[in-house]
């Protein structure tokens, strides 16, 4: 714990560690994310669902991609986000970072579940089945299991600061393992059966199909930023309810 003693991060990083400062900072930032999310998601949805051309093979059923892909991307990146927030909390002993990680857990798990559900709904008309043991589906399912492990541990430990640290360790170990799991599942699948369906290799989507998807992904990131900030701020109010500034804020 000595190599970063003489190493200073920008001032805002330390300010973020103060629950009150984070609460106010979040309040100023949230409308921007909410507005951006609203604009981008409605723009992307209307364009994607109504105006984008239908797929020449899948027809209109491909349009679920505008929900499915952002959900899958968010589910994966929020696990990493959670691990990074937890690591920041462990290294710099920042309480707010644990609250952020805790807030992100349920959001990430929900998006992962949404990706699985929309994938199943999409799979039925396209592949004729709700579920195949395809490598990508399987690793997404395992990701959901990792999320439920983190949530279960969080629920099981009543002391919030202990729970925050313990889940941070689990999230770090889990995120280190994600590439290994993904790689081994990829290999397992190609071993046992030829990969019948590849979701990745879309032969270059035309831009009028691709740009709405991009809008949706960015919009969902903004939505998550807004949601995690809101959940973190609620968490701050809950955990800091003894302090005077919370009482003062709640009176106003």
């Amino acid at each position, binding site marked *: 714990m000595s190599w970063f003693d003489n190493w200073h991060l920008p001032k805002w990083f330390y300010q973020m560690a103060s629950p009150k400062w984070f609460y106010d900072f979040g309040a100023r930032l949230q409308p921007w994310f909410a507005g951006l999310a609203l604009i981008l998601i409605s723009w992307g949805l209307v364009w994607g669902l109504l105006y984008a051309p239908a797929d020449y093979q899948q027809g209109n059923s491909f349009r679920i991609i505008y929900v499915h892909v952002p959900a899958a991307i968010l589910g994966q990146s929020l696990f990493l986000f959670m691990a990074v927030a937890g690591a920041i909390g462990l290294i710099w002993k920042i309480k707010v970072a644990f609250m952020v990680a805790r807030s992100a857990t349920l959001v990430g798990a929900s998006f992962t579940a949404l990706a699985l559900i929309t994938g199943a709904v999409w799979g039925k008309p396209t592949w004729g089945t709700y579920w195949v043991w395809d490598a990508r589906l399987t690793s997404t399912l395992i990701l959901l299991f990792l999320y439920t492990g983190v949530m279960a*541990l969080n629920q099981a430990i009543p002391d919030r600061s202990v729970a925050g640290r313990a889940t941070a*360790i689990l999230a770090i170990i889990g995120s280190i393992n994600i590439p290994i799991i993904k790689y081994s599942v990829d290999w397992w699948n190609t*071993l046992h059966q030829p990969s019948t369906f590849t979701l990745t290799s879309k032969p270059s989507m035309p831009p009028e199909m691709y740009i709405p998807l991009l809008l949706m992904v960015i919009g969902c990131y903004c939505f998550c930023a807004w949601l995690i900030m809101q959940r973190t701020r609620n968490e701050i109010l809950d955990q800091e309810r003894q302090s005077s500034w919370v009482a003062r804020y709640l009176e106003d």
Partner: protein
Amino acid sequence: MMSFMFAIIRRDLLLVMRYPAEMLNPLMFFVLVVALFPLGISPEASLLSQVAAGIVWVAALLATLLALDILFKADFADGSLEQLLMAHQPTWILVLAKVIVHWLISGLPLVLLSPLVASMLFLPAEALPTLMFSLLVGTPTLSLFGAVGAALVTGVKNAGMLISLLVLPLYIPVLIFGTGAVAAAAQGLPVSGYLAYMAAMLIFALMITPWAAAMALKVGQMQG
């Protein structure tokens, strides 16, 4: 440092010797779970020999999981864990000693028992050395990742179900490569690649898990 580690190993092995049931129960569980599959699927030798590797590996996963309780639970309950953590020795040494004990009483006996269960499931004889070797390389990884889970839930009530939720997803790569190696051996294909990957996972687990489990133990001491 080394003498501390050996003292812990010696002490824990002695404790286990006093209550042999702690060591025998996971083994009986292992054989019992394997015996359930022919009853549940089919006694057909041709079918069982195809799924034998998967059954043995899943049973091994569950049996090591069941034995994770012995890692830290008793020491936490009687307070000796707290003393060990204050012993002016690196905590990861303590974790490593505990993992070695766990492997000696759960992983190694599974390796030795595997010919028995393999013949119960009609595993082709030429795949048996690979099964034993894959268990030999794979079960220490299970013990290492299990130690993180066990350390995280010390002090949590009714941790049995919780620990399996935490640990089983991390066991999946070991399961895949373990069964893959045996399947390849049964078909007469080279297996060294699989075993090399399993060895790499073991080394990787040795690098990160003692640190993580040590940290989790210290965090666990903060409560109560």
